[in-house]
């Protein structure tokens, strides 16, 4: 009972300077059990730095990180720079994470639709496949807290939506808290419970809908063009240009 009351993770007033640059200033955040918290912010806002501090990979100058005692963390890193010279199949990569029985592994593999990939070399995976394998590795540890650094990196737009809905499913199935970094608020809106808009300090935070209206958010990311919102509300009836941006014709959809 008591376990339910204390947050999985609480970071208080985290500040850090690196090489004369203030990367984070008095940043606080909290993740409760079963809650999805998303960090958004422009490049260089300190999102990854904050995650690294939370994971104990980097030491903050000030502030503290309090994890629920004994909490198991599953971490999905941003990149995997594996040497071409390392023969490593997906199944072996997953087993390095350890901790699960075979039937558990099978469940996770089914859940993430990576059964066909198990005997493939890690280096031959596509962006979307690689991210799902990384997510599976994080889940192998029976995590109570999942930390995902840009989970949709290198994934095409349709794949991004699928991956986000997968993360929501995982939260429901495994009941874990999730802290993730994303570059686009509107893609994660349906997924996330709490949003923290970061730019060295916390610009604004709260429910995704309210953050998207917040002046500080608008200042950082610009006014929400109706076309951008369409990514969230009209998921399948618009087109994308080569950069994944929604093309102007979706404007018509919102009128029609």
């Amino acid at each position, binding site marked *: 009972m008591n376990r339910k009351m204390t947050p999985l993770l609480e970071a208080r007033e985290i500040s850090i300077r690196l090489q004369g640059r203030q990367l984070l200033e008095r940043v606080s955040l909290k993740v409760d059990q079963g809650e999805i918290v998303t960090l958004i912010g422009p490049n260089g806002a300190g999102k990854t730095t904050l995650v*690294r501090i939370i994971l104990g*990979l980097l030491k903050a100058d000030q502030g503290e990180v309090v994890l629920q005692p004994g909490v198991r963390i599953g*971490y999905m890193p941003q990149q995997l720079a*594996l*040497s071409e*010279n390392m023969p*490593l199949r997906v199944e072996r*990569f997953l087993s*390095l994470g350890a901790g699960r029985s075979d039937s558990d592994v099978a469940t996770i593999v089914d859940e993430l639709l990576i059964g066909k990939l198990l005997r493939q070399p890690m280096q031959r995976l596509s962006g979307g496949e690689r991210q799902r394998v990384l997510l599976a590795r994080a889940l192998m540890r029976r995590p109570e807290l999942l930390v995902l650094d840009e989970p949709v990196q290198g994934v095409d737009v349709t794949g991004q939506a699928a991956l986000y809905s997968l993360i929501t499913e995982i939260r429901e199935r495994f009941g874990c808290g999730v802290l993730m970094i994303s570059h686009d608020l509107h893609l994660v809106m349906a997924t996330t419970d709490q949003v923290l808009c970061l730019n060295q300090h916390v610009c604004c935070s709260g429910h995704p809908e309210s953050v998207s209206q917040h002046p500080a958010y608008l200042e950082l990311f610009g006014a929400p063009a109706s076309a951008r919102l369409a990514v969230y509300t009209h998921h399948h009836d618009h087109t994308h240009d080569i950069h994944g941006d929604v093309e102007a014709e979706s404007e018509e959809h919102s009128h029609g």
Partner: protein
Amino acid sequence: MDDFLLRALIAGLGVALVAGPLGVFVVWRRMAYFGDTLAHSALLGVALGFLLGINLNLSVILLGILLALLLVAMGGNRQLSQDTQLGILAHSALSLGLVVMAFQTSIRVDLMGYLFGDILAVTASDLLWVWGGGLCVLLALGLFWRPLLSLTVHEELAQVEGVPVARMRLLFMLLIALVIAVSMKIVGVLLITSMMIIPAAAARRFSRSPEQMALIAAAIGAIAVALGLAGSWHWDTPAGPSVVVAAALLFAATQLGGKTGYP
């Protein structure tokens, strides 16, 4: 077969069996230049060993550890990229070694022997060092195989999953220093890294798992030693370089046969 040739073969096989499995990590971790730096500094270790009158294997190991620690400390310096740092250390250590040796007029040092190895002059006590040190390295590799592998795949992920990353990294450097120290006499400081890298690279094509690659690398290294010594005997060529040439030829042979795609 002559006694000295048999000793050379046993010593060479000892080096190959250790250098292969350690070498695959050097290749995976892209640390070839790091290995070179430690190897070049071994000559300074030899010079200091003479100067202080201590066991040469020991002085080489100690200097290797010292240098590894120095590199870890220098790693914090972002002003210079790591290959520049390694370049500075490698060549200053090698040159300093040569200079220190030149000052010691009282002893005659077989410089060529240390640079390129003198496998035909291997003594029984050298054999003990090679196989004793080699077994220690293999034992450590076996014991810490999984954390080392995990670290090699993704350092931060390994750390989050509870691998003592800093200690494992240090252990790895120590193992390299140890292998260099015990095999210096066999292939020489300028060639020892090649015995780690070439067999490992040759093994890549035939391997489907990390363990397989380590074993195949050891086997290819052993074949290279046998071929190299046979060639050296036959054509009266220097033994250490002959072994490396044999390894290089084996590597070239594995690259033939078309397809570049790895299994």
